């Protein structure tokens, strides 16, 4: 990824917690207007990376620049342009939902009261209920509201949908799709629910053991990896399937399913014809792309 005016620019970022190397020489540039999916297993370093972006963590080595400023030195002016939902969902328990919304809104000159009212209604937030008594799902919704109602330029969502039920997740995705309409808004979303993420992202960053193992446009990834279903046109399949870059292969006598990389549809068709097979080419869902990349 590259851009003249990146929202976030990370160079050689390393972070260690005791014996655990949480981040190891991470380089990442996040351009304005992108919707980034940050994917990885538990402990891959996603949350650590996101916390560096907003300046809560300071790097051991390397640097992280957010909105043109060293992340650790972000001032209120820059921070007022960043929304953040963190996975712990810690809020101020003694306040009512209304009080919390009012309290947080005071920090932001751009707070959108109409959006707040709409989300309160859609998310069915009980304004009189104390935050401490809300269910995990409601707390998560409230946290999302707090992060989006001031219409931040950079929205960082760390496992925002983990506590949401399927219906609430659908609502949340709708909200994200609405937020995406603003061309200047950049969203970084970290989630394990890949089937949801793939509906909204245009770029995927995959992490493993503190390193970025893939950083590419989602379309680019979908073009790179394909699933090919081969059916023998006559007789059994040959013992050797002459395809390049095969990542996975499952087969029986007359059919085979291959996962391949860096092969165009024409190349696949040509290879299939050569072994007298019919090829059915399908793009890989994000979940499978993730599995292949991480493997």
């Amino acid at each position: 990824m590259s851009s003249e005016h990146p929202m976030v620019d990370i160079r050689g970022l390393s972070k260690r917690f005791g014996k655990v190397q949480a981040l190891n020489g991470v380089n990442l540039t996040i351009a304005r207007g992108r919707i980034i999916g940050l994917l990885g297993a538990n402990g891959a370093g996603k949350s650590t990376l996101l916390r560096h972006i907003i300046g809560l963590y300071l790097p051991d080595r390397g640097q992280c620049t957010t909105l043109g400023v060293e992340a650790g030195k972000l001032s209120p002016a820059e921070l007022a342009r960043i929304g953040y939902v963190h996975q712990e969902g810690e809020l101020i328990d003694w306040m009512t939902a209304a009080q919390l919304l009012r309290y947080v809104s005071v920090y932001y000159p751009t707070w959108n009261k109409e959006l707040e009212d709409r989300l309160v209604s859609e998310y069915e937030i009980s304004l009189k209920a104390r935050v401490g008594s809300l269910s995990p799902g409601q707390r998560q919704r409230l946290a999302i509201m707090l992060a989006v109602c001031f219409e931040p330029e950079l929205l960082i969502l760390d496992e925002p949908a983990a506590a949401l039920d399927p219906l609430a997740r659908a609502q949340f995705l709708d909200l994200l799709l609405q937020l995406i309409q603003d061309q200047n808004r950049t969203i970084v979303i970290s989630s394990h629910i890949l089937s949801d993420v793939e509906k909204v992202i245009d770029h995927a960053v995959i992490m493993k053991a503190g390193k970025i193992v893939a950083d590419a446009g989602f379309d680019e990834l979908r073009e790179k990896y394909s699933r090919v279903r081969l059916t023998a046109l006559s007789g059994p399949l040959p013992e050797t399937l002459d395809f390049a870059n095969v990542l996975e292969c499952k087969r029986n006598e007359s059919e085979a399913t291959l996962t391949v990389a860096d092969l165009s549809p024409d190349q696949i068709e040509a290879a299939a014809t050569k072994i007298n097979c019919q090829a059915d080419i399908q793009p890989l869902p994000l979940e499978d792309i993730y599995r292949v990349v991480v493997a």
Partner: protein
Amino acid sequence: MRVLIANLKLYSLRVWFWCACAALGMVTHAFLFWGRLIDEDGAALAILMLDALVLGFLIGTKQALLATRPFVFCLPGRRRAMHRVFLATGVIVCVMMSWLYIVFFEWHIALQGALTAMHLPALAVFFAVHLLGVIGGFTLLGWGLLVVFFLVLPFVGYESATGPYFTACAGLERMLVQHPAGVVAGAAVAAGVVWLGLIHVPIVPPAKEALEGDSSTRTTSSRLDRALFHRFSRCGHLRPWKHVWGMLYLTQLNANWRLMLVALLVVTALFCYMGMTRAMLLVFVPLMLIGNDGLPVHWQLFPAGGRRERYRAAMVLLLLVWIISVVLSAGMIGIANLLVPVAPSIEIGRLALVPKPVDVRYLWMPLLITPVAGLGWALLHERRTLLFILAMTLLSFLGVFTAPLWEAMPVAVPPLTNGYGLAGIVPAWILCAGALHRVVTRRDLVRKRSSNWEVRR
């Protein structure tokens, strides 16, 4: 046996447990050596019984926290395993306590010769008391109350030195010598009753969870709340004080001031009767204010406040605590001195409460302790609440247990209130501000909730 060892390892891996034991050891040492208690009949027994109770409490609390984790419900024989842990730890603790007791007893000339006969009865008594602590920790009390217990312990111990508790322990000690078999039988019955009670104790969430669940008790309808919120909302968006007002609105100082004031009024009424514990109390006023809510460095939310704003807010809060501590202390000293001419002398058994004037120089203690507490917080609290509280407690013990030395001086005031103490205020503030600045600008500002209580070695 493996299950037992696995359970016992839970204690060996926890820094807090050893810190608590170290604190307990230090208190015991202070009581037995520095105080004049060693000359009192029953003093050593009284102190070591308290120790056995507290250790039982610590062990019981840990097992209760473990027992309420959902996965533990599925473990086969969990109840039996817990009882084995209580028995094993109880034996270790009580052998140690009875050994200490006998060692200290050697100085008690009058009772020498009865040592061998007393070992078993002492062990039985300690075991019964220890079990009471276990059941207390397991069922009733949580971490918040444990901390309070630690803070209150020196008051209770010191003021009870000549009080009914020690008188009762002296009686018990005489019984240990004169009727060892009777004591063993009595302690065995008591321990049996407690043990049987323990077996039937329902495993319920301990008070920690209950306290956390009840964290929404604060209301925001007070005039002070409204005034602070008004000030906060009127402050311009990028003004430097915006964050400070927001923090002041959030802080629990604001929430608990009424309760605190009532507590202080009660204490003030008794202030002129207190001996050296009044110095202790003045030390704890700023400690309680800071320890109650901490400094606003690790925010729960992520509102638009950078590191510089967090530092400013933390320093403002510290200054505020400083002022409040001094004002409260001045009020307590002033009222106590006004009460001295009219307050009656009170005698309860061997305990004589005589009103005495309070030296105004006591006021210097909160002046110095506030920045020291801020420094302690900066160095420890960012990761370890319990360590901070323990460190501050130990610091206070060091100050207070030199009390007999102060009393021997022509002017009986604590060492902190001499010229050196006063001269230390400015360097303490410089160190505190420097350390806090370093924490806020150079450290990570995310603190795991669990690390407050569960510190791995």
